[in-house]
C-alpha cells in the first residue's frame, strides 16, 4: 500500500504505507523531511499537511485537540490536517497529501 506525498518543491513521492502507522510516520520513514517536533503527540502542529480534497471524506474528522492546534498554525485551509493524527488503513491506499510550509 502507498501514499503520495508532495514535498515543498511540488515534487511527488510514492511512499510505502503500513496500516496503523500515522501518515507523519509514513512520511518520515519514507525519508521525506518533516519536522514533527513533538513526535506525533498532537502538540506542535509541525506535521501540518493538506489532504487532497478527493480523499478528505475517507479520513475521520479531526478531534478537538487537533482543531485547536490547527487554529494556531499558519497557512491553514479547509484541507489542513495534522499528519500524525491520520492513522493509515487499507481504505487510504493511494492517499494524496501535500506538506504545508510549517512542516519543515
Amino acid at each position, binding site marked *: 500500500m502507498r501514499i503520495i506525498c508532495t514535498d515543498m518543491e511540488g515534487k511527488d513521492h510514492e511512499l510505502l504505507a503500513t496500516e496503523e502507522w500515522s501518515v507523519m510516520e509514513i512520511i518520515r520513514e519514507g525519508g521525506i523531511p518533516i519536522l514533527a517536533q513533538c513526535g506525533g503527540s498532537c*502538540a506542535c502542529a509541525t506535521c501540518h499537511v493538506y489532504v487532497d480534497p478527493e480523499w478528505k471524506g475517507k479520513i475521520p474528522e479531526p478531534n478537538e485537540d487537533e482543531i*485547536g492546534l490547527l*487554529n*494556531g498554525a499558519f497557512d491553514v485551509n479547509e484541507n489542513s490536517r495534522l499528519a500524525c493524527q491520520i492513522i493509515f488503513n487499507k481504505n487510504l491506499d493511494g492517499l494524496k497529501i501535500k506538506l504545508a510550509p510549517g512542516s519543515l
Partner: protein
Amino acid sequence: MTENNAQNPITTDAIIVGAGPVGLFAVFELGLNDVKCHLVDILDRPGGQCAELYPEKPIYDIPAVPICTGAELTEKLLEQINPFHPVFHFGQMAESLVKTPEGKWRLTTDRGTVLEAPIVIIAAGGGSFVPKRPPIKGIDAFEGKSVFYSVRKMEQFRDKKIVIAGGGDSALDWAINLQPVANHLTLVHRRDEFRAAPDSVLKMRSLVAEGLMDLKIANLTTLNGADGHLTEVVLQEDGKQPHPLACDNLLAFYGLTMKLGPVAEFGLNLHENLVTVDVATFETSVPGIFAIGDINTYPGKMKLILSGFHEAALMAKKAFTYVHPDRRYRFQYTTSSSDLQHKLGVTEAA
C-alpha cells in the same frame, strides 16, 4: 537582573545549559558527587518540553511511575533536587562559551549574566524555545523595532496603535494588559475560537463589547511601513476584500518552536545538529563539556527522558574528576550510604 559581569562572574562547579527534565536530574547526580550547579534556560520556568509542550499530557514510561503528567514530572524532579540548592537563571539564552586563561569555562547569556565553572553540561534538548515567526513576507525587517514576540516593558507601548495576533493565553493576556495603555488595540485571530483560560476569553469579550478594544477574525497578510517602522497591517477577513488597519506595533503570539541556536557555535562536534558524545562519560569532543538528553547523539540513541537520566549518572562520574581532581570517585548507593543520605538531608541515626 543579576549584578555581575566579566570582571565579577558568578563562580560555581557546573553550569547546566537547559532546565528540562534531564538538566534537572543532572543536578541530582552531580549533587551526590559534591558538584554544585547553576542552570540557564530561555524559558521562564523549569521543565523544558514537559513544561512547555505537554504539561497536562500523561507520560507512562518513567520507571516505577506508572503515570504522571509533564508538569507533575517537573514538580517531582524539583522536589528531588531541592537538597542541592540549584540556582536558576531563567528567561536567558546561553549565548557564548569561552575558555578563560585559568582554564575554566565562561558562559555569557543574552542578558549579561556571566558564569564560570570548570565544567559545562549541555542539556539543551531540542534546542532553545523561540517564538514562531508568522509567514508574512518581509516581517524580519520590522522585528525588534515595531514587531515583537514578547513584551519586556509595557511603557514602550503607551499611546500606540497596537495589533496583537494569536489566539492563545499570551495573546489574550497581553491584549487585556496592554488595552489600558494603548491608544488603540486590535486583537486579530483566524477563528472566533480561543485556546486560553476561560476567564481571559470572557474578559477580552467584555472589553470588545464595551468598545475598549477591537476583535478581528482575519488573516494578517501584509505589513506596510519603512525603516523597520510599521504604519499599517493588511487584514483579510473571510469573503471580504483585504483592508488596511493603521498600526504602530504588531505583537505576534503564535507559540514557541525549538531551534538549536547558540549551542551550534560552542565549538563542539555536531552530527545533524546534535552533539556527538563518548558513551562512557557523555563528554563531547571538548574536554570538560558534556552533553546529555535530547541534544546528544550516539549509536542507538533514543530520545527518551529515561535515556537522559542514565546519561546524567554516567556524566556525573566523570564530571566529579574535573571538579574534585584531588579526590577519588566512590560508587555508593543512596539506600546504604550515610554520606549520600547526609547530602540529601535524610540522615537518620547514622
